[in-house]
């Protein structure tokens, strides 16, 4: 999915260049997102047993990653931005893991 876009340099007050993404990349990501949406709908109708949920989440994560990296420019952003994005999902993970550590170990009857 990685390809080096031609950077169009935009002069601003200082020497810093603001990365300008070429529209062709945007169109490509857009197409990929639509395809992935179709895939997720199609896959929902296939019996994959317990894998259905993880696969649905995986596809959604890929879509979100594409939006974050390319539409939101994180691919070309500072390390600080990367840390912030990853850190927030990591922290959400902490919420999930530690909360479910309670629920999974309670011996609850399911359904």
């Amino acid at each position, binding site marked *: 999915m990685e390809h080096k876009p031609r950077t169009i340099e*935009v002069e601003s007050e200082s020497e810093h260049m603001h990365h*300008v993404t070429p529209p062709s990349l945007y169109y490509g990501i857009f197409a990929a997102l639509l395809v992935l949406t179709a895939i997720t709908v199609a896959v929902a109708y296939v019996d994959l047993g317990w894998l259905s949920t993880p696969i649905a989440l995986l596809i959604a994560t890929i879509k*979100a990653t594409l939006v974050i990296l390319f*539409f939101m420019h994180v691919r070309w952003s500072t390390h600080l931005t990367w840390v912030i*994005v990853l850190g927030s999902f990591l922290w959400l993970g902490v919420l999930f893991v530690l909360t479910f550590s309670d*629920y999974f170990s309670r011996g609850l009857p*399911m359904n």
Partner: protein
Amino acid sequence: MTVQAHPDSSHEEHHPRLQHHFETMEQQHEASQLGMWLFLVTEILFFGALFLAYAFYRWLYYDAFIAASHHQNILLGGINTAVLIFSSLTVAMSVYYSQTNRRKGLIVMLILTMVLGLAFLGIKAVEYHEHFEHHLFPGPNFQLPDAPGLAAQAQMFYVLYFFMTGLHAFHMIIGLGIYTWLLIRAMKGEFSSVYYAPIEIGGLYWHFVDIVWIFLFPMLYLIGRHY
């Protein structure tokens, strides 16, 4: 101890949009960007907590959630997903046009984004109306005729469904408000390659709202469809 001081470098900058406490437009732009990212972190944790509640009850009441989810209209949900993805494209293009000083392109993209946002909300309204008609709104009138034994737990699905999509729609409405403001400013010619931070950070917000929907769609519409 001495303090070495030198004159403000802001004397070099006199862009009318440079706020007095920043030295350069660059610094201001980076600050705005960082500010919006930190705000999005709060939104990730905000929706994330709702996803936690959802994950918990889905794990606990999987069958009821399947039964409930079958009442979701995949066609409308799928169209809405495509609508939002398309709007993310127009948002990205709006940033591109502002970065390359193309005012007309910017305005077109802003308008398109808003039209798509309105379309999303319209379709959502249709869906909500359907839910009301089919007695799927939580409360005393809730009914699940095809699986009455699971009704109480299926109601939990709908509590979460309305809460999460309602909150999402609320964020869309705010997004429309933001884009209205951006459109007005764009039409006044305020944005250029030197000053386009509001377009960029408005875009970040809109993309985030899209990402929430990217997760909501499979989680709410596509559970156990193979049954």
